[in-house]
Structures are given as structure tokens and as C-alpha cells.
């Protein structure tokens, strides 16, 4: 592989940024480089990463979804409410996860109807449905905070894969979720690169008309994309509820920007047609590094939002400048051909 090309890739820049930031934070406060802190950063990125994978697929397809955090908390909260209402208390966590994913897919299907069947611009459609979902949840399903969530979910919050007690300092705990999350990440990557559906998502983002002429159904692909986002957001929502050990219907709302920022920083093109799972993973890590450790740098926590906004702004600006440079060089090369 061309070394210069490798250097210019978005992923390389992200790795450099993450390493630099880690070194700076680590130099300021040595407790950053402990296993406990590393595991904490991982734990806080699980839910974010799931959401980000969903958003990545939407952004590759050329759309944007701002309803996914609401879909997530709707699914998680409703699953808990359902289980409490019917007094289901199974030993394992599979039932709530299945319920939440089901609800998520159903909500995603509503987005699909608005976007695929009626061709409403994606931002406007999802903005509208996010209002509907949040309003319906808080009016009809419940608006109170549930702290005694079903036992299986509660227990899952402390299910650790391994515990390491260093000679000094705090106990480092790696949550068992690391395995399914890694698996899902690999699966999404395979889905995007190796399946017909994944390739049609890239094609759709590259150009709608060209995709239609390839014989790929635009509507069916779009519908699948938004149902996929719904399902994965439902999963993220129930895991969020479990990890927090409480179901608060007001949570997650407003976090859409952090996730979109992570995906865009990860190199996904906002115009659609380009994006990698690896870049998204790095983007999520960078954002949670900043969110969790700004305080260690001596910056007040109230600057978090500004930092994310600035990062997102830098990310999209760099993308746009690269894009216009590419377009210019293309124009120059065709002019040369004409001259010859």
C-alpha cells in the first residue's frame, strides 16, 4: 500500500490525535495511564459505539438521523415498563434485549415509511418523528424515573469479564459487554463490505440515480437502513438502561450531536457514499476520551460541549477543503487532456 496515502487517511490522523491527547493528559495526571481508567473509557464507549454504528450506516446512505437517541431511550424505557407491568423477571438478559430491539425496529419502520415511501428529507422526517416518539413516551408510557429495574438488567451492570487488582490503586474491571460489542462491530463491518445490502447502502450514498439504474431498489434499501438504525438503537438503549441501573426517560435526548460528531470525525462523508467502521470506532474513542478526561486536563467540565462543537467543526471543514481540492485537481487534469 502506498505509504503517503496511508499517512493522509483519516484514520491515521485520528490515531495521532488520540495518542497525542493521551500523552498530554497522561503527562498532566499519571492516573490516566492505569488499567482501571482504560477500562472505564471502554465501558463508557459501548453504548456510544452502538449508536455510532447505526448512524454510520445512515450517513453512508446519504441521509441523517436525529431520532436515534430518542428511539434508544424509548425502547429501553418501554421494555423496562413492560417487564414491570407484566412482572416478567427472567434470569437472563435476553428477553429485555429482544423486546427493546423489537420496539426499536418498529420505530425505525415508522421512520422508513416517512422517508422511503414518501420521500421526505431525512433530517426533517427524523426531527418530526423524534418529537412524536419523545412526546408519546412521556405522555403515554411514563415520565417517572424507574430505579428498581428488573433484576437481570441490574445484575448485568456488574457482570465483569475479568477483574484485575493492581498492587496499588483501584480495581480494574472489564465489562463482559466487550465481547458482544466487538462481535457486533465486526459484523457491521462485514455487512457493509461483504453483503449486497451493504454495498447498496454505499451505492445509494454515492448517487441515487446511478443506484436506480443498477437495478437496486432505493426504497427497499432506505427502509432497511432506517429499520437497522432503529434496531441497533433499541439495543443501545436497553444496554444504557442496564449499565446505568436505572431507567430515566429524560436521558440520552440531546446526545445525537456527540454521536454524529464521532461518526463524521471518523471520516464518514456527510454527503454519503464513504465511511469506515474502523474510523467510527476511533471517532467514538476520541470523543469519549475528551468527554471523560477534560477534567484531568484542568479544563472545567462546562467546556465539554464547546470542545465537541469545535472538533466537529474542524472535522467537517477539513473534509470540505479536501473535497474541493480533489474537485479542482480533477478539473485541472481534464484540462490537460484537452490541451494535449
Amino acid at each position, binding site marked *: 500500500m502506498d505509504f503517503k496515502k496511508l499517512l493522509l487517511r483519516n484514520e491515521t490522523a485520528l490515531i495521532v490525535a488520540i495518542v497525542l491527547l493521551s500523552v498530554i493528559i497522561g503527562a498532566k495526571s499519571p492516573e490516566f495511564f492505569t488499567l482501571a481508567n482504560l477500562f472505564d473509557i471502554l465501558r463508557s464507549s459501548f453504548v456510544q459505539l452502538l449508536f455510532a454504528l447505526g448512524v454510520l450506516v445512515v450517513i453512508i446512505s446519504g441521509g441523517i438521523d436525529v431520532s436515534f437517541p430518542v428511539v434508544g431511550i424509548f425502547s429501553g424505557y418501554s421494555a423496562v415498563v413492560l417487564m414491570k407491568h407484566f412482572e416478567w423477571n427472567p434470569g437472563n438478559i435476553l428477553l429485555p434485549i429482544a423486546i427493546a430491539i423489537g420496539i426499536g425496529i418498529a420505530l425505525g419502520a415508522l421512520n422508513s415509511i416517512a422517508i422511503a415511501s414518501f420521500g421526505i428529507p431525512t433530517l426533517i422526517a427524523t426531527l418530526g*418523528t423524534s418529537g412524536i416518539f419523545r412526546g408519546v413516551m412521556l405522555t403515554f408510557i411514563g415520565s417517572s424515573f424507574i430505579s428498581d429495574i428488573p433484576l437481570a438488567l441490574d445484575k448485568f451492570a456488574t457482570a465483569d469479564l475479568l477483574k484485575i487488582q493492581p498492587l496499588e490503586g483501584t480495581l480494574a474491571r472489564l465489562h463482559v459487554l466487550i465481547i458482544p460489542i466487538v462481535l457486533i462491530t465486526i459484523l457491521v463491518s462485514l455487512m457493509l463490505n461483504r453483503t449486497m445490502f451493504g454495498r447498496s447502502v454505499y451505492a445509494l450514498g454515492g448517487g441515487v440515480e446511478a443506484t436506480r439504474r443498477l437495478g437496486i431498489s432505493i426504497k427497499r434499501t432506505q427502509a432497511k437502513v432506517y429499520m437497522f438504525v432503529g434496531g441497533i438503537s433499541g439495543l443501545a438503549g436497553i444496554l444504557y438502561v442496564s449499565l446505568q441501573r436505572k431507567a430515566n426517560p429524560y436521558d440520552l435526548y440531546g446526545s445525537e450531536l456527540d454521536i454524529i460528531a464521532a461518526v463524521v470525525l471518523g471520516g464518514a462523508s456527510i454527503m454519503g457514499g464513504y465511511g469506515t467502521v474502523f474510523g467510527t470506532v476511533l471517532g467514538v474513542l476520541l470523543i469519549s476520551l475528551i468527554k471523560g478526561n477534560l477534567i484531568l486536563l484542568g479544563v*472545567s467540565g462546562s467546556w465539554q*460541549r464547546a470542545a465537541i462543537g469545535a472538533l466537529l*467543526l474542524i472535522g467537517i471543514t477539513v473534509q470540505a477543503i479536501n473535497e474541493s481540492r480533489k474537485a479542482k485537481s480533477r478539473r485541472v487534469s481534464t484540462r490537460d487532456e484537452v490541451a494535449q
Partner: protein
Amino acid sequence: MNERFKKINSGLLADRKVTQLMAITAATFIIFSVISRDIFFSSANFTSMAYQIPEIAILSIAVMLSMLTGGIDLSIVSVSNAAALVAAWIMTNKMGDSDTLSTSWILIACIAGILVGLAAGAVNSIIIARLDVTPILATLATGTLFNGIAIGLTDGVSISGLPEQFMRVGNGTLLGIPTPFVLMVAIALVVGLFINRTTLGLKVFLVGTNRQAAQYSVMGDRRVIAWIYLISALLSSLAGLIIASRTSAASPDFGSSYILLAIVVVVLGGVNPNGGFGTITGVILATAVLQMVSSGFNALRFSQFFYLAAQGAVLVFVMILNVVLERRRVSRSISRSLRS
């Protein structure tokens, strides 16, 4: 008789969308007046509506202008809060312990607030018009950045206790009409004149209808877009000042729900989200409809989240209706041309 009807028809009623909206406005008014005769149909309610409509209407006009060019401005609320915060900060600092402040200092504070808003708008203009970043993401990012800076500087605390003269603007009356309402009418007239009677206004519609055609006609499409985001920021700052003077406070997280509301208003008002079509009359009527729905729901003691769901539903429903009507119109005109 027929001729006279045609004359009326070619004037105000020529625009089908505005006619529809007038019918919707009247219907909403009658329904709520009948259901809740003593609370909704009271002068107290109408007065309070006249104080609440202006801020939403002005923010919606700002969104409408950006939508006319085919973009969208999601940073309106952040910009209006930034302007209000700067003005409030100057006023409270100058006031010290006294309750009043000289009129000239209030004016200076307001101008400083507007200048900060314009600076924010200039950032939007540069990023969108100069660097060709997609407006949705650009303004999402700048909105977060401005909001983040405001939170960082104020630590998330609101500034309250503004001078009495300043509050009189937002709470007083001019010739018996609430002052904010008068300001709104003035702003609507000026913006209406701007988009309908000036060259720049005409160019706005051209850029929104067909950006490529605008580019080929060498009319400076970038400059048009740059101006629009500046004007949008100016209107947002004015709305921010009106909100501050009505509530006597400024806060970085005020009115975050206004973004959805403004987009609902604009879409309901018949503005085409892809650019090129929209009227000020439509936007003002749509604001009135939504404010009546909000007040009506209040009178019927529905929760605010039910109103949120209704907003989302109105947005999605109106978009679907537009698509369905458009499809029918197209198929009808095709069959008509086939017949002849």
C-alpha cells in the same frame, strides 16, 4: 361578478398554500374556541398569545430565509441566546446594585449583543458559502460550538434581573398592541420587502430553485448565501433580545425546543425544504396556528410533551400531504397532456 372574483383570486388567494393555511387557521381557532370557551376564548389568552407569537415567528422567518436557498440554519437558538447573554451581561454589569440603567447603555448593550450574533452569523457564512460545507452539519456544529462557549463562559447559570426599561419593551404595549407584536410586524414587513422587492431577494429564490443555473448565470450565488446566513443571525439575535426582555433573563440553554418548533412552523407555512418557494404570510399564519394549538392544549390541560408529539406529527403529516398532493398534481397534468 366573475371578473371581480378573478381579481381577488389573482391577488391574495392566488397562492394555494396561503389559502389552505388561512382555512386551517380559522378551523383551529373555531375548534378551540368551541371546546374551551371560557379559557381559550378569553382576552387574557389572546393577549398572552400576542406576547408569545413574535419570538417564534422571528426565529421561523430566520429559518425560512435559509430554507429558501435550499439550506437550513440550525444554529438560530444558540445565536439568539448568545446575543441575549452578551446584552444581559453588559446591562447587569453596568447596573451594579441599582434597578435602572440609562437608555443609552441599554442601546449599547443591545447593539453589542446584535454584533456578537452577527459575528456568529459570519462564521456560518464563511463555512457554508466559502468552504462549501453542507448547511445542516455546518450549523449543527457551529450551533453546538456557540452554545458550548456560552455554557463554558457562564458555567450554565442564567443571567437575570435586567433593567426595568429594557423589560418594558418585551412586556409593554404600543398604541394598545403588545410591543413584541409590533416589532414582529415591522420585521416581517421589512423581510417581506427584502425578498420580494430587491435584487438580492430575487436571487435568493433563484439560488434555491436551481443552484447550478444560478452559478452559470454568474450572479454571485456564494454572496447570496453568505448574506442569507448573516441576515438569519441578525433576526435570531433580535429574537433573543425580545425573549430576554420578556422574561428578564438570558440563559445558554433557553429555548432548545424552538429549533423543532421553528422548522415545523416553516414547513407548515408552505416553505419548500428544498428551496425556492415560501412566503412570509404563510410563516406568520403557521406560527399563529401552532401558538393556538399550544394555548388550546394548555387550556385543556394536556402535558407539554403531548404538544411536542403534536408538533412532530404536524411536521410529518404536512410533509406527507405535500408529497401526496404533488404526486397527484403531476399525474393529473400528465394524463391531461396525454389526452390532448
